[in-house]
């Protein structure tokens, strides 16, 4: 008996795996004691998180003045971090929803972790609009609830309010979507669990799932519907975030190109972050057969495409500024490129436009180490993109008398670090307690790219393990 491999489609999962192997492989990190590496990473993340918590506590206790902001520059690190994290979050939804709608089966290896990344990134992001308020304890005033003030409602014209709705919706839908995917895996875990506590916890979380085909039938519809809702949602969220700037009057902010530009940028940075995380995870958790080099290459291609859109947007913005004839707008872009914050602008350009062009080369796309470095480069670039948009636009706007400079304080840097601490702490906890790969979905694509023939025959598996096309 021999196995035939499709010429057109490569298998998604490398190596010949049986269903049980998948479960075993994916769940292994959950069932083992945490490794030393995990502990080190976790403690480092937790420490950084604690530093951030201290910084934020201090800031809330003493005042926003502990940040480097001033009368001219009212936002800097806070909203930069907010947009950055929201952007990071976008890749997860894109992978789970948009690629699902496009029937990109390879998404199954990474969608669980990417979605987890989304949820954690949205949490990181959501902290910033909260703590950037002068009186964060009154945050609930942005919720339109009937009250004894007459009722005094909220301003539905404010992009910050839109943000509140967008982010809370995004978080809710992402969580639901993620959890829906998690239910069957929780059931798998429950049925494998030996200890009573685990059985109980996983039992609670699996909602009584038993794999009934009738439920699977509704499940798939629900999943599809959620994917269909999440797809425009993910586009809307960053569009709305971009409207924080686009609807403002400040040169450098007031730009109609922002929504698509921001969405592309978000996916660009999000995929880079996914790449960063997956490259680490596949190595550390030994998921090379699930997150294959092909996966990485595919993600690189998305990074390349979205990077291209971002570069195009930069170009259009500059073109519009120079040829549109608004002197404030024109100055803003000259100032970005040659003014006091030129360094940030050129970091942004080189990280987001120049270096990603290396991904045109297939060898580089398939070189894990290089891709890893590039993914970090892109993330740095995208952080600076937001910094450039926010700070350089504000620091020299209409009236030269109010021009000012911004320098972050130690508190702001600690807060930024703390958000990374939060991100990695939660991500490490996720990797520890939740199946990193969607077991149920990977099983479904196990045969993808392989002819339907006797996969259960163990002898043939062994014989042809190394065959590739």
């Amino acid at each position, binding site marked *: 008996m021999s196995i035939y491999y499709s010429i057109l489609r490569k298998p998604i999962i490398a190596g010949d795996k049986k269903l049980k192997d998948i479960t075993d492989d994916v769940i292994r990190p959950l069932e083992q004691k945490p490794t030393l590496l995990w502990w080190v990473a976790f403690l480092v993340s937790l420490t950084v998180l604690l530093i951030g918590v201290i910084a934020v506590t201090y800031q809330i206790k003493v005042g926003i003045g502990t940040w480097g902001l001033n009368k001219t520059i009212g936002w800097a690190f806070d909203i930069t971090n907010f947009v950055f994290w929201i952007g990071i979050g976008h890749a997860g939804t894109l992978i789970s929803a948009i690629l699902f709608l496009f029937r990109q089966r390879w998404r199954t290896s990474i969608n669980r972790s990417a979605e987890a990344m989304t949820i954690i990134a949205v949490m990181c992001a959501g902290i910033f609009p909260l703590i950037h308020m002068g009186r964060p304890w009154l945050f609930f005033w942005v919720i339109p609830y009937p*009250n*004894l*003030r*007459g*009722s*005094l409602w909220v301003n539905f014209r404010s992009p910050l309010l839109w943000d509140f709705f967008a982010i809370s919706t995004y978080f809710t839908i992402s969580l639901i979507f993620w959890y829906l995917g998690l239910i069957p895996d929780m059931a798998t875990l429950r049925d494998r669990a030996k200890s009573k506590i685990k059985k109980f916890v996983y039992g609670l979380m699996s909602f009584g799932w038993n794999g009934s085909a009738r439920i699977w039938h509704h499940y798939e519809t629900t999943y599809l519907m959620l994917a269909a809702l999440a797809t425009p949602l993910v586009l809307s969220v960053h569009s709305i975030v971009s409207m924080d700037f686009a609807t403002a009057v400040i040169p450098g902010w007031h730009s109609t190109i922002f929504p698509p530009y921001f969405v592309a940028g978000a996916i660009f940075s999000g995929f880079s972050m996914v790449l960063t995380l997956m490259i680490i995870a596949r190595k550390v958790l030994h998921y090379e057969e699930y997150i294959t080099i092909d996966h990485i290459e595919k993600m690189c291609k998305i990074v390349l495409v979205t990077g291209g859109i971002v570069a195009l947007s930069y170009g259009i913005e500059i073109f519009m500024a120079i040829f549109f004839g608004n002197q404030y707008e024109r100055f803003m872009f000259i100032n970005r490129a040659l003014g006091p914050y030129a360094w940030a602008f050129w970091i942004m350009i080189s990280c987001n436009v120049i270096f990603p062009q290396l991904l045109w080369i297939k060898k580089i796309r398939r070189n894990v180490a290089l891709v890893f470095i590039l993914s970090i480069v892109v993330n740095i670039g995208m952080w600076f993109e937001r910094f450039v948009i926010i700070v350089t636009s504000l620091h020299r706007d209409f009236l030269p008398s109010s021009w000012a400079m911004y320098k972050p304080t130690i508190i702001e840097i600690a807060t930024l670090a703390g958000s990374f601490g939060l991100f990695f702490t939660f991500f490490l906890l996720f990797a520890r307690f939740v199946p990193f790969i969607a077991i149920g979905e990977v099983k479904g694509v196990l045969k993808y790219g392989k002819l339907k023939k006797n996969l259960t025959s163990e002898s043939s598996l062994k014989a042809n393990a190394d065959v590739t096309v």
Partner: protein
Amino acid sequence: MKQNLLIVLLVILAFILVVLAQQIKINLPGINQGYAPQQPLAFSHRLHSGDLQIDCMYCHSGADKSRHAGIPSENVCMNCHRFVTAGWDKIRIEDERAQKEKRPPQPVVSDELKKLYRAAAFDETQMKFKDKPYSGKPIEWTRVYNLPDFVFFDHRRHVNAGVSCQKCHGAVETMEKVTQVPDLTMGWCVNCHRDVNKGKIPELKGRYASISCTVCHY
């Protein structure tokens, strides 16, 4: 089945809670509706304003001139209480008794008014001021109607527009002890202003009460 029962029970419980809350009038934080603190001197608005029909503005004379209606200073009280030292009934009893005992009637001074006399440095036995009039310690009334510091309510505008005192303060002339009648929320203010603009308040028909923020907040 069990599940549904639980839901039904929860709904009923919530309903009961809401009704209960309404019944015992639990105030939300920051709202002091019904506040009726014990005052250092048991001044009766019922007696002065109700029975004796003294005009509100006799004592609260700033109400039509200033933002604050004002708590009367002791000299305003003394305008009458230099002569009136106790309730009529008490004085009559003493008079009758004195007549019976065939002696000149003793001056009768109510306990509450003694507090006032102390503050005004008034010798009630001689019915005249001491060496230094008004050299005592003023009476520390407890404010009943408290607005936050960021609210600037102007009595003058309301009084001059023809808003009766009772509109906001309730039937003070019936109160032995003054109670905060309205909840003093912003909604209470705003909704009255809206009613004025809609012509729902007969005595203020044709008037315009702005609901711009800076009417009260600046």
